């Protein structure tokens, strides 16, 4: 593999005394999908916030395309080509679906000069929301809102897309469709993706590599098949089985 598109070195974040993220390294190659899994509270979302600039790291560096971008403000990173989505989708409730995407399309990757008004409907089309353009996000189903969240991120023409649980919480049919959409983003748009996901079948089938976090630390990394065999991972997920805890 050539030089990574995004590389994270020893990234740490403490909240008060609590170490939410502890010296995590990761690399993302162009066109790769990297899954990030781990139990609740493992520090996955914190990792995203640090990369995307919503939080300032306590220590460590982030490099994008070989240049340091550590601690840069979110809106500037978006223009550089790194964009994130949120676990709890946050559409602009006072804007229509199309307007939501248009706002995002105005910014983002500077190299893309297709006018926003022109690009937004195409992105909506891509994520399958074209027929909802004039509606307000409040009328969309959860899956619809997740698509909108994706569309908004895509409209900025990212090179790195950070997806925080885009599939979780929707019904199985919709989950399959969303997973397919994520794959199309990589295959057709060539965007590199880091995804946090709890829906295991989706992560395992989509990811090229998987990174496992627990208690803020990286406990495993590898292909999906490697990771699910890792005893540390199994323990983190299913709990210790070594000894009984009878009273």
């Amino acid at each position, binding site marked *: 593999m050539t030089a990574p598109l995004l590389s994270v070195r020893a990234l740490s974040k403490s909240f008060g005394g609590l170490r939410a993220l502890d010296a995590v390294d990761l690399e993302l190659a162009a066109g790769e999908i990297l899954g990030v899994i781990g139990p*609740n*509270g493992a520090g996955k979302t914190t990792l995203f916030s640090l990369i995307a600039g919503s939080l300032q790291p306590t220590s460590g560096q982030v490099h994008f395309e070989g240049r340091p971008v550590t601690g840069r403000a979110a809106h500037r990173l978006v223009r550089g080509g790194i964009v994130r989505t949120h676990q709890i989708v946050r559409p602009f409730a006072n804007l229509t679906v199309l307007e939501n995407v248009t706002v995002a399309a105005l910014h983002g990757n500077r190299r893309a000069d297709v006018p926003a008004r022109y690009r937004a409907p195409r992105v909506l089309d891509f994520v399958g929301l074209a027929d909802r353009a004039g509606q307000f996000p409040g009328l969309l*189903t959860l899956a619809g809102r997740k698509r909108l969240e994706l569309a908004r991120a895509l409209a900025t023409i990212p090179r790195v897309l950070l997806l925080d649980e885009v599939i979780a919480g929707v019904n199985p049919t919709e989950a399959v469709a969303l997973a397919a959409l994520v794959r199309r983003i990589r295959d057709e748009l060539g965007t590199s993706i880091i995804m946090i996901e709890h829906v*295991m079948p989706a*992560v395992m*089938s989509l990811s090229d590599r998987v990174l496992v976090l627990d208690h803020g630390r990286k406990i495993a990394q590898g292909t999906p098949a490697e990771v699910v065999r890792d005893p540390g991972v199994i323990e983190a997920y*299913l*709990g210790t089985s070594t000894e009984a*805890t*009878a009273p």
Partner: protein
Amino acid sequence: MSEPLLQLDAIDVSYGDVQVLFGLSLEVREGEVVTLLGSNGAGKTTTLRAISGLRPPRAGEIRYRGRSLATIPAAARADLGISLVPEGRELWPQLTVRENLDLGAYGARARPHAARNLERVFAMFPRLAERSGQLAGSLSGGEQQMCAIGRALMSEPTLLMLDEPSLGLSPLLVDQVMNTISELHAGGMTILLVEQNLRKALQVAQRGTVIETGRVRLEGTSAELAANPEIRAAYLGI
């Protein structure tokens, strides 16, 4: 067999237009420990919130000791003996430990026994007794969990519900919490446990229910579930 203590009969629960539970049914009998399993977003927390009245069902019925809870407001359910230890503890961070515990006995039924129950809680969690004057927000994660359980116990619950009590705790503390649950069960309390540490949960529970996207996927005794490969598949995606 006697009437179950708690009975969920095909409840639907929604957040705005997003439906989370679809015709979910569940039973908990007096003196049992039942665990509710499932991946994130399956609807476990929502189920507990529906029982405690914070998020009443849109359809279906919740019965407690055979009586429908439909007309009973959330605030009155503590007095019936239904108590929830919420996910993330949800303590009052700027009240002291002691105040947090005292407020647990706010209900008219529990208030006269506050002193006795406080003693019991302190006996169970000596750590809390040491820290009783400290602000709850300044406690460590494990201590907060103890405090949250203690607060629930102050209301003299018949049915204790715990939502992911091991979340964010070190393995040692997880064991401690699980021991506590076993102790409470041994003392005759009925417990409904939501837990992501599947093996631990199945060790303390007699029965388990696995839910997936708001519907029951599997049900059975702990032994049955522990042996079922489907569970591993659901959790790890293989």
